[in-house]
């Protein structure tokens, strides 16, 4: 195990599945035609594009025209939010208010902040200590001018799954468009847009064992948005640029595999992450699970370990071959600790000591055993160097026995 990489950062990105690589290869230099061209190579590209769209639309339970390929999850979120804001807000002057929540990915938050500079008003809903939005808060935030609600499906840092169906009902009652960032959901949650009830949905390849740099926006029929990118008119004139066929083929293949393996993987990974969580909480004092105890993505284990700084822990882990991530201020470019952990009401010290392990398709039982074997000693070392000694009673609520038992089941 010492010489092997134990990759527990699948929420950051996943390895490309070999089956996906295989599906993509012919489209680089054999079947490389531009779908827009009037010859057989071009037609080959068009067929691959159509097939990919077909596969994906059947998984999302929508029609093929409702799928628009983009260059990333970030682009999809931008396209959704700016697209609606600019069309409904600027062009049709239907309103200038957007509702989102504090624990969104930067792809959503920064986009909203950008729109604020353009004159839009944005409400950032608070979350509770498990990272959940409050539906009454949402209802209360709705105004006459509200044009869009953007709430993510599952959180990338703490794994909390939001009640999208209820949110969708509220949006429909109020005739407000609803976008969800589903980038963390593809492997474990139902992507049926009819069940979710969203009008727009962002998804990418990078988290589902597909290639990076490709994403999609589901855009419900009849909804108009202003495009971000203008040009040759691809993707129903909403996202110009020659279609990236190999990546799109890989994305479709990845989603197909993820969907086929969803049930089995949810169960398998659920068991492993339960073992990891309970193992850490029972061997390391003053540690607790971040996020929701039940309504969480099974692959996510985010633990705050008091009195340690996450970057130091990560480097020790990396030294032993384990890749994880942290919400510590020391690793962020802005030197601000994780906005997600802070939004759940924890002080920055607890964000500093937050470590995220995100399990995946390649994670094995032996790897979990290995982490459980080396982590207590690493924490002991880092704690030794630390002059900080937070009082356990200040975190009583988080450190209670009840919190150590999590039920990672198949989530509805």
């Amino acid at each position: 195990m010492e010489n092997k990489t134990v990759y527990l950062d699948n929420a950051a990105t996943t390895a490309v599945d070999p089956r996906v690589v295989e599906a993509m290869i012919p489209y680089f230099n054999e079947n490389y035609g531009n779908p827009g061209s009037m010859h057989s190579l071009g037609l080959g590209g068009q067929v691959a594009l159509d097939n990919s769209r077909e596969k994906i639309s059947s998984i999302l339970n929508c029609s093929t025209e409702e799928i628009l390929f983009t260059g990333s999850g970030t682009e999809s979120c931008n396209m959704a939010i700016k697209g609606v804001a600019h069309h409904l807000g600027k062009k049709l002057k239907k309103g200038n208010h957007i509702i989102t929540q504090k624990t969104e990915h930067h792809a959503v938050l920064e986009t909203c902040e950008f729109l604020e500079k353009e004159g839009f008003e944005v409400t950032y809903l608070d979350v509770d200590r498990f990272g959940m939005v409050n539906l009454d808060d949402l209802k209360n935030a709705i105004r006459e001018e509200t044009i869009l609600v953007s709430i993510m499906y599952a959180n990338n840092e703490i794994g909390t799954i939001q009640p999208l169906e209820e949110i969708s009902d509220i949006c429909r009652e109020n005739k407000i468009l609803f976008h969800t960032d589903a980038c963390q959901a593809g492997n474990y949650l139902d992507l049926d847009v009819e069940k979710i009830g969203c009008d727009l949905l962002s998804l990418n390849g990078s988290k589902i064992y597909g290639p990076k740099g490709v994403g999609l926006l589901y855009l419900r029929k009849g909804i108009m948005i202003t495009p971000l990118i203008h040009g040759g008119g691809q993707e129903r004139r909403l996202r110009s640029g020659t279609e990236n066929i190999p990546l799109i083929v890989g994305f479709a293949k990845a989603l197909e595999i993820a969907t086929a393996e969803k049930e089995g993987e949810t169960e398998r990974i659920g068991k492993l992450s339960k073992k990891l969580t309970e193992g850490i909480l029972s061997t390391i004092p003053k540690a607790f699970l971040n996020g929701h105890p039940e309504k969480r993505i099974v692959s996510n284990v985010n633990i705050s370990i008091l009195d340690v700084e996450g970057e130091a822990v990560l480097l020790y882990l990396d030294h032993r071959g384990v890749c994880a991530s942290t919400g510590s201020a020391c690793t962020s470019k802005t030197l601000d600790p994780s906005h997600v952990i802070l939004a759940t009401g924890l002080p920055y010290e607890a964000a500093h000591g937050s470590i995220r392990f995100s399990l995946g398709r390649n994670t094995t039982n032996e790897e979990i055993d290995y982490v459980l074997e080396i982590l207590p000693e690493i924490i002991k070392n880092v704690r030794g160097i630390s002059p900080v000694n937070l009082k356990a009673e200040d975190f009583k609520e988080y450190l209670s026995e009840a919190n150590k038992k999590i039920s990672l089941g198949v989530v509805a």
Partner: protein
Amino acid sequence: MSEMKTHIDVKATVDSKNWFYNDTVKEHFFTPKNFLKDEKEVEEFEKVSNGVGQVGSPACGDMMKLWIRVEDDVIKECKWQTFGCASAIGSTSMLSLMVTENEGMKVDEALKITPQDIVKRLEGLPARKFHCSVLGDKALRGAINDYFRQSGQDDKVIVEGAKIIDKILKITDKDIEEAVLEGARTLEEVQKKTKIGAQDKSCIPEVEQLIRFYTEKYFG
């Protein structure tokens, strides 16, 4: 709906290799020198030490505590603890080595050490991690001042007083220094962090001068 602004200011930033650590830093991180590894060691060392300094990092909220044992104005031992990142651990480990090697350094000499000197001995730190080396340096200054007080040399204590620059919001030169250490380089960036000059416009030329001064001091 309200009028939309058309001009939007978005600036590109470059930060490659933002957490890459070289071998010297790594060595000091993985096998730090002179740290106190638990409360018991702290207790023991506090019996012999005669100077202690503690600082919190304004940038990331981290903390550093540093103890010295001085004999006849020469630092014989320097021990520390930190709630900080690898750079904080590495640079303080290096600093503790620098002030105690070759039979120890005179306190007056130790006061001349700058964060740049530490970074140089470490053969470099990522730019955005520079502020971590300031942590140990400041803690050392605190510890030396404490030693001066304990040894009756109060006249030598260096008070790094803060001077109020923005008279309305009471923002000091220290706040500007911290903003620069956090990466702000322009008036706008410093204003984003401190709101300086939002009301007291008269201070802006002085603020700009201080930004140049601190940028030069730490990153020049």
